[in-house]
């Protein structure tokens, strides 16, 4: 117990010192509040950003809806749902294509050249074209996020299928499995460790892309909010927004870890 407390104190010592020094220097007026606001001011601003704008009115709807009616929850929900929708589109195309490309050399040889040309282009470089094609709002953002998620899922799925131990395929064929069942019940689960690696990378890229896309094309969401705050020189709100983006990223990470562990509970080296 005391060791736990000691460990906790050790791990917060440096962050606490930095915060204290930052707070003190800001109060002394060493930094202008417009450049670097005091941490306490950021916390106050973050709370305002988080809180509902209107007092609770039962006639307007449920308490839960009211709790999420603040600007930050709305922005975060918007950004996360864009990540999810874009990822589902990109991953949803990449997964079957990757399964086929991994299993069928002909499909691989047909698609690989085009994909290899497109793959090194960072999804962010597609921003101008995506705005030209889809205008402003959600469509270009979903396109960019889907694109960002597509390649990691595709590449890892192909690798996963190619690394399926032939003995599982033989065992399944021996028990009477034909190609369709083989894909669904043998190749897909056997490739799952690779596929999930692709999913995690893909979600990470999607989260980067959503912030940039919101800054340029969407005019909503967490990315847009910190850019908007800069226009008003609200440095406290910029930092509060950045912290919120970080927390969302952390949340995605924790969720993916859990999902990973559950889906791969059969895997050697995974402790349940």
């Amino acid at each position, binding site marked *: 117990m005391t060791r736990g407390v000691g460990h906790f104190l050790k791990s917060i010592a440096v962050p606490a010192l930095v915060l204290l020094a930052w707070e003190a220097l800001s109060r002394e007026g060493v930094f202008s509040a417009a450049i670097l606001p005091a941490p306490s001011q950021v916390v106050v601003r973050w709370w305002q950003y988080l809180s509902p704008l209107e007092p609770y009115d039962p006639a307007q709807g449920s308490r839960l809806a009211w709790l999420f009616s603040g600007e930050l929850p709305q922005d975060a929900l918007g950004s996360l749902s864009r990540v999810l929708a874009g990822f589902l589109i990109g991953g949803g195309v990449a997964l079957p294509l990757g399964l086929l490309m991994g299993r069928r050399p002909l499909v691989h040889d047909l698609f690989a050249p085009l994909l290899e040309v497109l793959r090194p282009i960072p999804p962010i470089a597609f921003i101008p074209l995506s705005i030209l094609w889809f205008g402003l709002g959600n469509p270009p953002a979903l396109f960019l996020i889907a694109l960002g998620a597509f390649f990691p899922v595709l590449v890892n799925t192909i690798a996963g299928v190619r690394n399926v131990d032939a003995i*599982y395929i033989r065992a399944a064929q021996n028990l009477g499995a034909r190609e369709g069942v083989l894909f669904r*019940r043998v190749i897909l*689960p*056997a490739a799952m460790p690779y596929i999930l690696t692709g999913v995690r990378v893909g979600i990470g890229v999607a989260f980067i892309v959503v912030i940039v896309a919101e800054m340029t094309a969407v005019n909503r969401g967490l990315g847009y909010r910190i850019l908007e705050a800069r226009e008003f020189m609200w440095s406290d709100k910029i930092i509060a927004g950045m912290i919120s983006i970080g927390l969302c990223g952390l949340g995605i990470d924790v969720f993916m870890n859990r999902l990973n562990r559950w889906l791969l*509970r*059969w895997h050697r080296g995974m402790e349940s």
Partner: protein
Amino acid sequence: MEPAVQMTGVAKAFRTGGREVLALDGIDLSVAPGELVCLLGPSGCGKSTLLNAIAGFAPPTAGTLLANGRPVAGPGPDRGMVFQEYALFPWMTVEANVAFGLELKGEPRAAIAARVEELLRQLALWEFRDRFPKDLSGGMRQRVAIARVLAIDPPMLLMDEPFGALDALTRRNLQDELLRIWSALRKTIVFVTHGIEEAIYLADRVVVMTYRPGRVKRIVPVPLGRPRDTASPEFNAVKREVSLLVMEEQARHERAERGVAAD
């Protein structure tokens, strides 16, 4: 009665590193229904290649090969295979592994559940039905693998050094278990091994194979009743005969390897 396996002039050539290697040559062998035959020989004699040909994973390059009266065109559930590496699906529980073949046949759920329970109880696996293969010992994994092929009730079992990775006690246990299953169900079994004692302990006939290219060197019948006593003089008389044959081939194997090293 029609033989379960009928091979005439079966040969198999591989290309490795630009060189043609003849793994099997001129194999004539037939296995009667309900017979337990062991293929025995040093590594590199093509015994696993021969088994894979019967299973339909890798067709021979010459000769004719009939299984259950039909030419082998590919793998199928009439020839249940048990692999040395178990080949259990690691993402399925014990129960799901055993049920898989029955699900492929499209049997009704209740029938599958009943059959799976019966098999798991028979093989002392019922308590472990919810475990994943990674949480089982080698002997238990191999019992699951045997249950998995027995579930689809094939007339023939093909076993590729199934007990090779197990310790001696577990191996003897599973050999006895297999003999029990065999005498109860009267399935044809083609069993590949490099264990001389294992082959004589199990087989009606031991097929001793030559080192590269694999040919049938001699077929040694084992005229002993079961259960067999590995310490008896009769057992050891057969063992001496088979050992001499295998040692000749082992010596050729070693000479060949030294020859390659000297190249």
